[in-house]
């Protein structure tokens, strides 16, 4: 262990009073009593319930849809099909340049269905059960088309086309060259090549995507209650597709039962249910059933990598050259951003300078993907860590040594990666040392070799993931310069009410991150009050919460963008409070501090209670400074300090770079292939922690998500495009029995780029997938087995062992 970090931690310990404390989340108080307000808890007068008919075919022409029997069912109010949708809306916009811009994406299948589970028709009825009965009565005649589920087959010239208008299933291709890989390779002692596959899995938040749309013809007001996690960004997509009056759309979110990125693409359902409400003239509520949630594509990006790594004999990495093929499923939605997001973590935690990425974004007859926790980065980081370990074995170098040799060190921070990402701070070697110390690495290594003598397979796996957060939307300019978004922003207001109490709002659509609590801690410190004196508006209402086109919870950033916005508003408010107090108390603003609900003139007995200041501002304004605008409500919009890509296509795609280092010890039963996690350690560093307990919770969650994906959860399709894991019977969501205890430790490398030294966190960079793959490979080392897929089942491990030639130690 090296000292500096520890001392850094001391020095940088935040001076404030409430920030840094594990204040009990105020949100929890309502949730533990079942008094949260989730979408399905809302009931409106005259409300209808919707159900959606989904395609049983992965690829088929829709010859005809007969809704007559369904319409005749008592209680059925309205039904819409692709024909209605085609008349009422345009396809949703995408971010790809031609010809990929010809991808057709509506809220219901128009003309043909492109994946099994695609919405084909929707019904609104007086009861849920009747809506479901009506679905059974809709008769659709399909003309099945050839199905393509294998992404590499989809790239063949003669492949069936998922998106005919594009003329190819490759909707986006681009080669990125950072540094000079060719040159690097020519200086290499070894080049290791491998094909790797990162599998498809879902997010499966406990609450599915739900919508309650209420259109009032009389006012033209469309209220969309939803649980989308970035609805104000999606509003643009909705308005562009429908042409509806943006100024008459009100979007509301309340408590949200988890999102993990999956709830970003629910805008297609927001349009669909709004259409039903417009057609029936009544509020319509739609609750997505779990099976639909699993099949209709809230999946993480599936990727295939052909990767070469160039190294020196001593393990120094010179460069990486990778062809990546992203299986986007049938529609792009947020894609191909996921195929690009590696630019945030292009060289991972390592120092190499030469990187060539040949990126292919390909459509298949599978459910669409979404920006799931770890989006785009986890695939890339897993690929880098895998190829490095595989290369290390080939070079007979210890996996620890090769990492230590290539890690970027804290002295090199801020560090600029080949693609221009500016890693703000961190100490990867220290995190790894810490994790190894916690797990008891030498002891396990000893046990491992003893156990192997008796055919017992123990593996110790290591992974470092970078949790880049607070994205710069300009990264989409790397896909197309025409894309009309860039930068990052957040807006908040802070208000002192007539009685000296505070209200704060920021449109963040939280879903488990305790934003209300954390904001109250930050504001309390700024204004010299207790968190309880600060009411943070729950949920989000676009008619009361200030928002920008970037608002929402995504890309690990609330601790940065949300907090910067709140700080900005509070500080403006503080300034005005002090000005009023100074005027009233005949002091200079510089002498005034805010403490315990008072404005106090330092070194004097003069002070003014907040309620008196508030009263002047709101009710007694003739006593205000003559030229001062009455009221105490300040709005602030934070703008991310970002740039557009430079001429070499380099840019800093996110503002902060948290990271996690995990170490796992696993045991594999050689007779069955069953894996058991014996010990799991997670070290994380997201700079200054606003609320350590909340951060730790995020670390736990990210750890579980990754473990779940690596050994339990897989979206497995058959050749005809049927998803074979479509309910919790087969989509193996792990329980408390499967998931081990996590031992965690937090390091603090404050970000130099944020006011409080905070960094975004929570996604975890897919670190557990890296760690478990590494652990399995280590356990199976006696058989000389390489792990080239991010998902393993007992049977696959069993088969790997059986197929392996070498049978040492067993």
């Amino acid at each position, binding site marked *: 262990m090296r000292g500096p970090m520890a001392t850094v931690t001391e020095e940088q310990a935040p001076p404030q009073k409430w920030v840094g404390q594990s204040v009990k989340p105020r949100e929890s108080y309502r949730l533990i009593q079942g008094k949260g307000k989730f979408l399905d808890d809302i009931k409106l007068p005259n409300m209808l319930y919707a159900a959606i008919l989904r395609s049983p075919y992965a690829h088929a022409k829709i010859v005809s849809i007969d809704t007559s029997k369904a319409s005749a069912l008592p209680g059925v109010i309205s039904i819409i099909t692709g024909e209605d949708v085609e008349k009422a809306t345009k396809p949703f916009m995408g971010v790809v340049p031609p010809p990929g811009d010809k991808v057709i994406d509506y809220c219901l299948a128009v003309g043909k269905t492109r994946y099994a589970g695609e919405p084909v028709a929707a019904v609104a009825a007086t009861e849920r059960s009747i809506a479901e009965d009506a679905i059974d009565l809709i*008769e659709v005649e399909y003309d099945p088309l050839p199905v393509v589920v294998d992404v590499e087959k989809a790239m063949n010239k003669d492949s069936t086309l998922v998106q005919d208008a594009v003329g190819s299933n490759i909707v986006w291709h681009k080669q990125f060259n950072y540094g000079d890989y060719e040159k690097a390779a020519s200086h290499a002692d070894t080049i290791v090549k491998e094909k790797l596959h990162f599998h498809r899995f879902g997010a499966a938040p406990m609450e599915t995507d739900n919508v309650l749309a209420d259109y009032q013809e009389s006012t033209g007001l469309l209220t969309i209650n939803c649980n989308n996690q970035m609805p104000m960004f999606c509003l643009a997509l909705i308005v562009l597709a429908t042409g509806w009056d943006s100024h008459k759309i009100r979007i509301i979110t309340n408590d949200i039962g988890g999102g993990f990125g999956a709830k970003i693409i629910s805008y297609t359902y927001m349009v669909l249910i709004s259409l039903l409400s417009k057609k029936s003239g009544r509020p319509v509520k739609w609750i997505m059933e779990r099976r639909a949630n699993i099949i209709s594509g809230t999946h993480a990006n599936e990727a295939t990598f052909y990767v070469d790594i160039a190294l020196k004999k001593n393990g120094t990495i010179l460069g990486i050259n990778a062809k990546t093929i992203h299986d986007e499923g049938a529609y792009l939605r947020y894609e191909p951003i996921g195929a690009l997001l590696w630019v945030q973590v292009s060289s991972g935690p390592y120092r190499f300078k030469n990187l060539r990425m040949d990126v292919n974004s390909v459509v298949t007859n599978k459910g669409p993907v979404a920006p799931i926790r770890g989006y785009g980065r986890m695939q890339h980081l897993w690929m880098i860590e895998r190829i490095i370990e595989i290369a290390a074995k080939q070079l007979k170098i210890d996996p620890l040594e090769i990492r230590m040799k290539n890690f970027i060190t804290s002295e090199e921070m801020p560090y600029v990666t080949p693609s221009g990402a500016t890693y703000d701070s961190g100490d990867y070697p220290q995190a790894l040392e810490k994790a190894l110390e916690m797990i008891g690495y030498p002891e396990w290594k000893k046990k491992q070799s003893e156990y192997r003598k008796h055919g017992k397979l123990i593996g110790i796996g290591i992974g470092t993931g970078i949790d880049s957060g607070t994205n710069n939307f300009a990264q989409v300019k790397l896909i197309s310069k025409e894309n009309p978004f860039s930068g990052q922003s957040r807006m908040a207001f802070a208000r002192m009410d007539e009685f000296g109490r505070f209200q704060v709002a920021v449109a963040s659509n939280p879903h488990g991150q305790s934003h209300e609590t954390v904001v109250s801690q930050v504001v309390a410190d700024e204004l010299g009050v207790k968190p309880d004196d600060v009411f943070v508006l729950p949920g989000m209402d676009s008619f009361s919460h200030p928002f920008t086109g970037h608002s929402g919870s995504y890309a690990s950033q609330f601790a940065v963008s949300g907090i910067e916005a709140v700080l900005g508003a509070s500080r403006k408010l503080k300034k005005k409070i002090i000005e009023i107090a100074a005027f009233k108390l005949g002091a200079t603003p510089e002498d005034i501090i805010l403490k315990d609900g008072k404005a106090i003139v330092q070194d004097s007995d003069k002070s003014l209670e907040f309620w008196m200041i508030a009263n002047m501002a709101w009710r007694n304004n003739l006593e205000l400074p003559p030229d001062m605008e009455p009221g105490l409500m300040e709005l602030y919009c934070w703008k991310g300090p970002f740039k557009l890509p430079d001429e070499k296509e380099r840019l800093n795609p996110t503002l902060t770079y948290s990271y996690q280092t995990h170490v796992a010890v696993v045991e594999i039963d050689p007779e069955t292939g069953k894996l058991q996690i014996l010990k799991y350690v997670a070290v994380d560093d997201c700079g200054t922690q606003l609320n350590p307990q909340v951060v730790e919770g995020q670390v736990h969650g990210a750890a579980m998500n990754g473990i779940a994906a690596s050994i339990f959860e897989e979206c497995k399709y058959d050749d005809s495009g*049927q*998803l074979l894991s479509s*309910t919790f019977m*087969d989509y193996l969501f792990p329980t408390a029995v499967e998931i081990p205890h996590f031992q965690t430790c937090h390091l603090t490398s404050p970000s130099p780029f944020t006011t409080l030294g905070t960094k975004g966190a929570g996604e975890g960079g897919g670190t557990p997938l890296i760690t478990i793959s590494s652990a399995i490979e280590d356990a199976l080392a006696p058989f000389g087995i390489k792990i080239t897929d991010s998902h393993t089942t007992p049977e696959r491990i069993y088969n790997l062992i059986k197929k392996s030639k070498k049978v040492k130690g067993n």
Partner: protein
Amino acid sequence: MNFDGTFDVKAPREKVWGLISIPDNMVKCIPDLKEFEILGEDKFKASIKAGVGFIRGTLNFTFTLSDKTPQSHAKLSGHGTGTGSTVDLETIIDLSELPDGGTRMIWKAEAKIGGLIASVGQRLIEGVAQKTVTKLFDALKEELEN
């Protein structure tokens, strides 16, 4: 899913052909048949309550007989929907005479299943399909030999 088999019946080819090539006769042998409707000489609708035990869903099939070579070859295609699922079936049947005057039927079937049944019924489909095929041929035998 692909199935095939050979089965011999103690009945002359004319009789066998007469059964399998005429919808009116053929439908009698379809297991779990609820109702049927002849749409033409080579086309018929059949509503089948398919499944096992109490796990059953009604599938509405349209069957078409084609490639008919009297007394020797025929193709039966069926397309069924229901229970949020689809079944596409294609069966090829070849008849030949046996020395004992009986008939040998060599058949090949391909079934494609989609939707709910495909995605939640995995563990069962194959078994159920096998059973249905067996039932079908038992019924044919019954019809032909008595």
